């Protein structure tokens, strides 16, 4: 079955290109800052606000720092936050959702009511409040974002577990004497991981967006450690005369989000194929 899914994914050109795109972005985020001789915090004030050139591939910012290096450093931070949030949400959500779904009945009712209530609080509002609570920084951001995103994964996992519980093959397995753990590992996990993966792939760009948004509002990690959102905020200042300062970080944030969105769509289509797109 896994092969089939992979084949379907490969057939979706948009999704494949996006996957390659994401891999390229990841690679650049890892090695980009080392590609030239500048470090992200080096200030060369006389060279401030210079347009892209052979020396400064993306130009410089208001304090004379090389934008190329800063953009990839920022990308690293944004991706880190996005992926970490995705991972934590997936794990926490999966645990919560499995317990709720498998337990069923009243326990499930209470657990999901809790999730529903928190789910109705607007995402960004919630994150803003939470991030006020902590010292601004990467860790705080990840915690604040995960604290909201796990609701999504919990719902998905719980829905799947609930559905699977009643599926015939689980009943059959139980009749054959399979113990609870065996059922969980052999039957439930493979079937849950699909939708969970799709949800996680959706959470990542949402997290990257939220982080950029918050940095833009001044709530994220502050200078000189700067994520893409922070760079965009800075870039806005110089938009009249130095548009490249906005353009480069904006382009890469958008590409990141686009990439993850398309991959997530591709995964969803590959896992649940309908004849019409």
């Amino acid at each position, binding site marked *: 079955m896994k092969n089939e899914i992979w084949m379907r994914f490969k057939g979706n050109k948009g999704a494949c290109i996006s996957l390659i795109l994401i891999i390229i972005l990841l690679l650049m985020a890892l090695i980009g800052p080392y590609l030239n001789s500048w470090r992200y915090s080096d200030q060369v004030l006389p060279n401030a606000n210079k347009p892209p050139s052979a020396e400064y591939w993306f130009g410089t910012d208001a304090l004379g720092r090389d934008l190329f290096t800063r953009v990839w450093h920022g990308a690293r931070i944004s991706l880190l936050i996005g992926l970490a949030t995705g991972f934590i949400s997936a794990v926490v959500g999966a645990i919560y959702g499995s317990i709720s779904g498998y337990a069923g009945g009243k326990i499930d009712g209470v657990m999901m009511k809790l999730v529903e209530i928190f789910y*109705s*609080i607007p995402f*960004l509002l919630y994150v803003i409040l939470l991030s006020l609570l902590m010292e601004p920084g990467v860790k705080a951001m990840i915690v604040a974002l995960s604290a909201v995103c796990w609701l999504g994964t919990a719902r998905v996992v719980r829905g799947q577990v609930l559905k699977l519980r009643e599926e015939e093959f689980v009943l059959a397995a139980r009749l054959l004497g399979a113990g609870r753990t065996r059922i969980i590992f052999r039957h439930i996990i493979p079937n849950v991981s699909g939708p969970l993966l799709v949800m996680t792939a959706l959470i990542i*760009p949402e997290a990257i967006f939220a982080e950029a948004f918050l940095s833009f*509002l001044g709530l994220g990690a502050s200078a000189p450690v700067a994520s893409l959102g922070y760079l965009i905020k800075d870039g806005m200042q110089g938009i009249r005369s130095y548009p490249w300062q*906005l353009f480069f970080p904006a382009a890469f944030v958008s590409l990141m989000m686009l990439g993850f969105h398309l991959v997530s769509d591709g995964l969803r289509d590959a896992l649940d194929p309908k004849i019409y797109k």
Partner: protein
Amino acid sequence: MRYLVNKLGSAAITLLVIITLTFFLMHAIPGGPFDSAKKLPDSIMQNLNARYNLDDPLWRQYLAYLKNIAKGDLGVSIKYEGKTVNQIIREGFPVSALLGGIAITAAVFSGVLLGVVAALNRNRWLDYLVSLFVTGGTSIPSFVLSGLLIYFIAIKLMWLPPAFWEGPESAVLPVLALAWLPAATIARLVRSSMIEVLSQDYIKTARAKGLVMKTVVVRHALPNSILPVLTYLGPAAALILTGSFVVESIFTIPGLGKWFVMSVFNRDYTVIMGLTVFYGALLILMNTLVDIAYTLLDPRIRIFPAEER
């Protein structure tokens, strides 16, 4: 109906949760005004004490706060002496409501139109164009979009003003920046919904009556396709609300969003608290209205109000 009572009950509980959460979060902030170690000007401290009884135990403060909210009093600003949150709302909300209202209307109309066009021209160039629109909307964050719009249209082309809220031309760019994402999502929803509807048997029955395609689409396909859009209105409203923070700041529009952003910058915690409660209540109200509207509009659901939606 029982359904209505249930809905209102849920709404009230959610609101309570928001208020409680906000309250305890604000009080937990290290370095906040509620932290006794922080030093604030005396006049402000007096105000705060009067309003919030900072010497009382926490739970009493909480109850007092609840009582105040019930009375309609959402608090005072720490940074701006004498300014109450209610005043801020009165000043800023009309502007934001106008901006948001236009944005959501624009989003729904354009989204539905584009979705229908895409569904009827599946896999042809029009469909492709719409999917570009959708891709752009869902991947370019609103703040980036605002920046790009300002740069290209206001600065380079000088077609529209880059900021402020004076006259109808000022509304175009902010509305565009706010509405693009919801419009894109609606377009995508309508497209897939309509494609599914068009493959249904009742469309064949309609055509078999001898109706032209246009009539079939407008009278049968469209009403059945836009029901899912209704369920998206709730999240769309939330999106536009939070989007307004950024758009109003960038375009310097004197709305509630800008106030909220400013109070976050200034760490004006009491205002943050008050505005959050206001926003929360607003969104819950809108979500509840949408839910009720849905049950009224779909005849299959009307009959069974007790069933889980």
